[in-house]
């Protein structure tokens, strides 16, 4: 691809500037059709496309509509959205598009320059569905483009948009903020985040072998499925309860078995983890012990939860752990960068009352272990549909 050229994967002639109300029927039908088409075209059974297809089903979208949309109010999409999607999550751009469409917007999606097979399958499926006559009006609302290092194009797209979804972390957000937008444009910046996992040690020890393995495998999916490099993958484990030592031992050894069996990262991960380990041993003061279970499972135990705690985003199976018997200690490790807490051994009601009482400056999601990577219409602290649409107040 030429440096300056633009490649339209979908909607070269899309006119944009069309709006709908959130969860419009035509979008629900379009996504359901897309779900079926994805299934057919996804011959190689990429698991992330299967997940996407599952997400787009009518049943799921209607469920989302019931949870996230009040049909008594009058809302419409903001207008045109410009989505800058991350370079290393092959299906993320599709979810960003779904957010935009469900909000009732026209969309320009900039996809990463990597040649992901999944991306090709998704674009092909979208094109197949858009060809159908019944979706003719959607042809103007979806444009998917690919280009590299072209500020002129980014500038032009930014100028015609009413909202931008900027994925990809701090650097991308900072870069996009350099381009001027319409005055009323709304940016949703997805900045660098990290996440933690909260485990009740007593409850964990009570699990039988079968259920322990299920939990471990959910934890594995939260983490290793995205090389621990997703913002919502846990980087630190916070243990609570009275049987922490025993619980840790059981947890890490079960996880180690699974990682050795299943995880196959590139060679650089070994150097990354070893280098990180040496960096921590040479620079951190708050470490009580290190354990290297295998090349893809390092556990750094920190001495005491207090203000000196640091959390840095790690990857490839490199974890910190802390323990506490008082959950309000969370305040020491909470800041605006803390996104998700995955948990085990606490009731939803307990957590609801706990988080409503403590005004933590951070934490946008608290979900059971296994749901870290599940994308939802409340994401990164934003109600996506509400943010991407406007309400007409009639009295």
């Amino acid at each position, binding site marked *: 691809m030429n440096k300056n050229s633009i490649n339209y994967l979908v909607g070269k002639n899309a006119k944009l500037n069309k709006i709908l109300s959130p969860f419009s029927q035509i979008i629900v039908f379009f996504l359901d059709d897309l779900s079926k088409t994805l299934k057919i075209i996804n011959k190689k059974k990429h698991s992330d496309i299967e997940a996407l297809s599952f997400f787009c089903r009518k049943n799921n979208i209607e469920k989302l509509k019931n949870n996230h949309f009040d049909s008594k109010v009058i809302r419409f999409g903001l207008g045109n959205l410009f989505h800058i999607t991350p370079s290393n999550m092959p299906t993320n751009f599709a979810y960003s598009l779904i957010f935009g469409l469900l909000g009732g917007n026209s969309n320009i999606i900039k996809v*990463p320059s990597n040649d992901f097979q999944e991306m090709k399958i998704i674009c092909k499926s979208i094109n197949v569905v858009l060809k159908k006559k019944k979706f003719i009006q959607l042809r103007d609302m979806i444009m998917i483009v690919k280009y590299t290092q072209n500020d002129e194009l980014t500038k032009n797209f930014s100028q015609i948009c009413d909202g931008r979804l900027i994925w990809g*972390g701090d650097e991308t957000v900072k870069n996009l903020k350099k381009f001027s937008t319409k005055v009323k444009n709304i940016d949703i910046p997805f900045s660098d985040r990290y996440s933690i996992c909260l485990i009740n040690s007593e409850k964990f020890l009570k699990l039988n072998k079968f259920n322990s393995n299920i939990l471990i495998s959910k934890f594995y999916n939260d983490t290793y499925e995205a090389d621990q490099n997703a913002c919502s993958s846990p980087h630190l484990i916070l243990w609570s309860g009275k049987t922490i030592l025993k619980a840790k031992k059981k947890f890490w050894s079960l996880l180690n078995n699974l990682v050795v069996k299943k995880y196959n990262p590139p060679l650089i991960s070994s150097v990354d983890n070893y280098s990180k380990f040496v960096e921590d041993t040479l620079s951190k003061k708050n470490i009580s012990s290190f354990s290297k279970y295998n090349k893809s499972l390092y556990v750094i135990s920190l001495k005491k939860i207090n203000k000196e705690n640091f959390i840095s985003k790690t990857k490839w199976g490199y974890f910190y752990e802390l323990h506490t018997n008082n959950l309000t200690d969370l305040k020491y490790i909470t800041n605006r960068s803390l996104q998700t807490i995955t948990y085990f051994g606490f009731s939803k009601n307990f957590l609801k009352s706990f988080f409503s009482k403590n005004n933590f400056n951070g934490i946008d999601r608290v979900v059971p272990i296994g749901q870290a990577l599940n994308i939802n219409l409340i994401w990164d602290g934003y109600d996506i549909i509400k943010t991407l649409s406007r309400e007409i107040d009639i009295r």
Partner: protein
Amino acid sequence: MKFLNEIMKSEAYSLNDNKISFQRYINQLTVYHYKRSNLYKKFLNSLKYKPNNDYQIHELPFLPVRSFKQFDLLSVNKRDIYKTLHSSGTTSNLLSKIYLDKANALNQINVLKKIFFKTVVENKLPMIIIDKKNNFDQNSYNATIAAIRGFSIFANDIVYLLDQNNNINYQELNKFLSKNKNRFIIFGLTSNIYLNLIEKIDKNKIDKKKFENSILIHGGGWKKILDKKLNHNDFNSLLSKNFGIQRVINYYGLVEQIGSIFFECKCGYFIPSNFSDIIIRDENLKVCETGEKGMVQLLSLLPTSYPGHSILTEDIGEIINDEKCRCYGDGKRFIIHGRLKSAEIRGCSNV
């Protein structure tokens, strides 16, 4: 340091079994750094490694090269530092910092001389440097300038191919060529040789024939010219086709271990000298079998002012078993397959 004075008397390559003395010296070096660098001591303690003189070479701990970017690792007083070397990274990356005192810098030069005069040519020759003239009087410089400075000691006359604006200085070059009618050395980074000597130079403005007898030495890797999709053989045959250069020698070395570098032998292999060794490690950091690709760990007896005598690089290499190669005696032979790839990670950041 007694043991270093002993080893400095050694030849570059010796046919007798050098392994035992290398092992003894490198263990002494670990003890030496343990006693002098607090950070290095912390590192060994975290590995629960008790330094003594009995470890096998593959049992020695190794610092990842990234540590030299993140920390000031030194085993002498900071006021005794004579030069600081940096990696030639881009500004967005942190740079390595290698701290040299006078003794360490001198040993580097002496060992480089021993190796060079044994493997390349026996005496000084005129030299064309495929770079611009740099100031060597600074307190710190990057790997490229360090390499040029190191190799320039083998020159009895020097011309720099490029002027300060990176244009080819034909006038100076032709002056050099008419003055030095016999054999000369051409030295430069692999990428600079390609970009200037193969791509940029206007062959009508020079007398190509004069290059036929020259020895070309290059190193530093292919990273900057990856898009050219060249391999080692293409590179050599372009030099032979364009200039008739028959003797092209690649070298392999890191800024962390300047001096004890590896020159390619006539069979195309790098061979450790009496001052260096190599171990290839797999994904679990275990030692690879001969013929297995893995990460390169480099050992050198030279680093004394900083604990860089055993490091894990981010290069991929392979020990070769070729019974026909008899260059510089028995011992290990290896090839380098380039760098580890970094951008394969999943996740939601924009890499």
